[in-house]
C-alpha cells in the first residue's frame, strides 16, 4: 500500500484499474452477486406479487393480520433472517440433509425471505387504488378470480416492476444474511457486499472501493429505471 504519497488517490486509481481491466476476481464476485440477488428477487416476485395483489383484491378472515405481518417483515434485520435460515439449513437443522449451507442456494433462500415482504407490500400498494377503480367494471363483465387477478396485476405493471426493482436493490445491498448463510468463501459464496466488508478489514481497499463503485452505479441504474417506469406508466393513468 502506498501509505506515503496521497494514499486515497492511489487507492482510487488502483480501484479504477481493476474496474476498466475487468479484473477476473472482480467479475466473478459481481457475477455471483447479480446471480444470487436476481434469483432471490425472481422467487420473491413469484410469491410476493400474486399474494400482494390477492391481499389488495379480496377480503377474507385474517387478511388484516397478514397485511400487518407483511408490513412489519419489510423491516426485518438481515442478520436475523440469516440466523433463521442458518438454523434451518445447518447440519442439525430440519433441512440440514439438503447440504445447502454455505452455498449460493442458501444465500438465495435467505435473500428471498428478506425481500418477499417488500415485493408483497409494494405490490399491494400498487394494486389497491386500481382495484377501487376497476371493481364495478370487473363485476359487470363477470370476470372470474383468475381474470381479476391477471387484469389487476397487469394494469399495475409499472408499480409491480418498481416493487421488483426495490426488492432487487435491497437484496444486492444486503450483507448480514448472505454473510451468515454463505460464509463468504472465496470463489464460491463471496459477493460484493461481503467482499467489501472483508477486504476493508484486511486493509485491501482498492478491491473494496471498486466493488463499492459498482454497487453505487447499480443503485443509480435501478433508481433511473424506477423513475423511467413511473414516467411511462403515467401515460396510462386517467386524469379526471
Amino acid at each position, binding site marked *: 500500500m502506498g501509505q506515503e504519497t496521497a494514499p486515497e488517490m492511489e487507492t482510487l486509481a488502483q480501484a479504477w484499474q481493476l474496474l476498466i481491466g475487468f479484473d477476473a476476481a472482480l467479475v466473478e464476485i459481481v457475477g455471483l452477486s447479480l446471480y444470487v440477488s436476481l434469483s432471490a428477487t425472481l422467487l420473491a416476485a413469484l410469491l410476493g406479487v400474486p399474494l400482494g395483489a390477492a391481499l389488495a383484491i379480496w377480503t377474507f378472515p385474517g387478511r388484516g393480520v397478514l397485511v400487518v405481518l407483511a408490513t412489519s417483515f419489510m423491516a426485518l434485520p438481515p442478520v436475523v433472517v440469516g440466523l433463521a435460515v442458518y438454523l434451518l439449513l445447518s447440519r442439525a437443522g430440519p433441512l440440514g440433509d439438503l447440504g445447502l449451507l454455505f452455498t449460493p442456494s442458501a444465500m438465495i433462500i435467505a435473500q428471498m425471505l428478506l425481500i418477499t415482504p417488500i415485493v408483497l407490500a409494494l405490490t399491494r400498494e400498487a394494486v389497491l387504488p386500481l382495484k377501487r377503480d376497476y371493481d364495478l*367494471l370487473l363485476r359487470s363483465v363477470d370476470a372470474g378470480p383468475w381474470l381479476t387477478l391477471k387484469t389487476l396485476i397487469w394494469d399495475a405493471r409499472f408499480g409491480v416492476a418498481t416493487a421488483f426493482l426495490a426488492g432487487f436493490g435491497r437484496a444486492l445491498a444486503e450483507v448480514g444474511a448472505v454473510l451468515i448463510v454463505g460464509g463468504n468463501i472465496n470463489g464460491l459464496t463471496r459477493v460484493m457486499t461481503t467482499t467489501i466488508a472483508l477486504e476493508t478489514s484486511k486493509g485491501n481497499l482498492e478491491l473494496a472501493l471498486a466493488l463499492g463503485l459498482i454497487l453505487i452505479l447499480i443503485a443509480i441504474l435501478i433508481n433511473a429505471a424506477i423513475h423511467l417506469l413511473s414516467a411511462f406508466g403515467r401515460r396510462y393513468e386517467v386524469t379526471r
Partner: protein
Amino acid sequence: MTILTFDKVELTANNTRIFGPVSTTLDTKGITVVMGANGAGKSLFLALAHGLTQPSRGVVLWDGIPAIETRSSRGFVFQTTPVLRRSVYGNLALPLAARGIRGAEAKSRISAALIAARLDADPAKPAAALSGGERKRLDLARAIVASPRVILLDEPSANLDPATMAAFEASLLQIAERGTKIIVSTHDIPQARRLGTEFLFFSGGQLCETSNGQDFFERTQSDEAIRYLKGEL
C-alpha cells in the same frame, strides 16, 4: 325475447328503504327509457337489473334466472366511464376474455364494436389519452363487444356535446335495430322522446309509471311524471 322481472324488489341502507318495493316485467324489444329526477332511483334500478347491486328483499330475474348469474350476457355503460390502464384494444378485450374469446376472433369483434360505437381511434393508443366523448364511446364499444342480448346504460349522454350526443344516439338506434335490447336512463326529455319505445318513470325510489310508446308523453298518468315533464320536479 328477453324478459326482465322485478319481483317485490327493495333496497335498504342503514334501515332506511331507498328503493322499492318495485314489481314489474319488461318483455319488449327496442329501447326502454328510464326517466326521473336526480336521486329518483334510475341508477339503482339499472344496477339492480344488471346484478351489480343485490336487493335487500325480492328478486331480479332475466328469463327466470337471477341477474347476478347472467351478467356476462349483458353489457353495461357506466355514468362515470371506468378506463383500464391499457390501450383502447386492451379495454375492449376484457369482456371477451371474461367469456374466453381471444386471438383472431377477439380482434374482429373489437373492430366491429369500434365501428358500431363510432369510435375512430387507434386501438393501440392508451385509453387514458381519449377525450371525454371518446371514452363514452369506448364504454359503449366495450358493452357491445361480446354481442350481449341486452345493454344497460346509466345516463350515458350526461356530459356530451350535441354532435357527440347525436352520434351516440344514432349508434344506440342502430344497435337496437340489430335486435339488442337497450335499457337507458336519462333525464333529458327530448332525448327520451327520440329514443324510447317504452318508458319507466321513477320518483323517490318508486316506479310511478310504465308505458308503451309515446303514450307516456301524451297520456301521462301519475302526478309525479306530469310534474316532471312540466319541469317542476
